[in-house]
């Protein structure tokens, strides 16, 4: 009899425990973006040593042969020069795009001179950690001046934007993710649209991105380049290369183009975060 009573008591306690946990879960679900990102930032900070160790081990394994042939100092210098070169190439590419657009706008509307960006070099630590989202982790955080929603680029084009930022690490949502939406314009055309990733690309569409909300009669040609449009108050500045048109099709209400990203997002290792304008 006493055992039955004790058993019932334990059952009641278990039910109370589950109810308390459910209330806690409901409370968590009410958190806004700010507190949720703060919690995720703490989590990123906790796993950071493991991720960095893994990245270092991975890099060491990848460069064993190279290390046997070269001295550490030469390798470091080479890396530094390589980085500088990429930074200059990126700045150059942006300047050319901006210059072309700037000249056009100056002549037409007398717009003021566009500025150049501050680029923060970063290394990708890990990639594609989840099944449904396309993200990477980079080795720069708020201590380096990175904030949420900053554009991430390489010398060849757009990579994505920062999401949650931890002390020394940040999550970057790639261009191939459906939630990374970019206002874009078509080279040599007045056509504009929204570029985003595909939720789950079909076989054969792997790595592709789409441009939607084009006019039905846009009739884009294969290879036409797509640039960021630079919407006022938006995340991405104007003139960054996104990719090139692969196919175009007219849908019921709009036109949709499949694009080949300018950056090989599956293999890119070094990126730049645009942290400001000069």
């Amino acid at each position, binding site marked *: 009899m006493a055992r039955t009573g004790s058993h019932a008591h334990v059952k009641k306690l278990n039910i109370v425990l589950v109810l308390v946990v459910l209330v806690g879960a409901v409370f968590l679900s009410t958190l806004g973006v700010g507190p949720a990102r703060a919690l995720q930032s703490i989590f990123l900070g906790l796993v950071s040593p493991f991720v960095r160790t893994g990245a270092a081990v991975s890099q060491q394994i990848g460069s064993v042969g190279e290390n046997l042939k070269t001295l550490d100092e030469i390798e470091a210098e080479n890396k530094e020069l390589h980085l500088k070169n990429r930074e200059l190439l990126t700045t150059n590419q942006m300047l050319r795009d901006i210059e072309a657009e700037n000249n056009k706008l100056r002549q037409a509307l007398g717009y003021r001179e566009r500025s150049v960006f501050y680029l923060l070099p970063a290394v990708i630590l890990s990639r594609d950690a989840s099944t*449904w989202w396309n993200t990477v982790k980079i080795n720069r955080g708020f201590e380096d001046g990175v904030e949420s929603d900053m554009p991430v680029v390489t010398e060849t084009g757009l990579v994505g934007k920062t999401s949650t930022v931890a002390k020394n690490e940040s999550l970057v949502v790639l261009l191939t993710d459906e939630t990374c939406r970019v206002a874009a314009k078509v080279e040599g055309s007045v056509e504009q649209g929204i570029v985003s990733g595909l939720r789950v690309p079909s076989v054969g569409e792997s790595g592709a991105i789409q441009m939607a909300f084009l006019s039905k009669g846009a009739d884009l040609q294969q290879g036409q380049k797509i640039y960021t449009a630079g919407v006022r108050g938006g995340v991405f500045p104007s003139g960054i290369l996104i990719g090139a048109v692969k196919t175009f099709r007219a849908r019921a209400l709009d036109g949709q183009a499949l694009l080949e990203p300018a950056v090989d997002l599956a293999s890119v290792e070094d990126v730049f975060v645009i942290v400001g304008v000069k």
Partner: protein
Amino acid sequence: MKHAFAFVVLIVAIFVSFTLQEWLPGIHSFLGARWLFVPTLFCFGALTFSFPAMVALAVYTGLLTDLAYMNVAAGQVEIALGWSIVYFVTVGILIRGFQPAYTRGHWWILIPVSVVVTAAFLALQFAMISLRREGLVFNEVVFWRIAGAGLLAGIFAPFVSLVVWQAGQWTGGPARQRVVLQ
């Protein structure tokens, strides 16, 4: 004391698994399905520990899962924090129905349980994303990413049971304790 130690080991294993999962690429043959160790480790915990310990494990696993996969889209958290806690508590309660059989030495129970829990987790995650975004997309890639991850969990599960079995043998515990830590 032994149970507490085993619980701490499982907590650490789950934490390390989150990092390990990041380093393992998607399986090309399964159209990008990924290794997910965490649901299998949770299932093992639910089959072996007491009810309060299972709930604590569900809170821990659920919270870390939500934080690991949290995505902000259009200024909102896409899948609200806390849903994984509810998921793991719910499946944990259901899994405990298999505990007597697991206790009797049917170690293979961890395999189907891991397959179902892993696949259901990804299916629910995808359903929630689809509800948030513009309609449901379903193709063979979606199928394989869900089913493939389940199958991979089924491959991983026997190793978890095997490790515990071996640990039980090394410590010289009775047959029941070789499988179940409770």
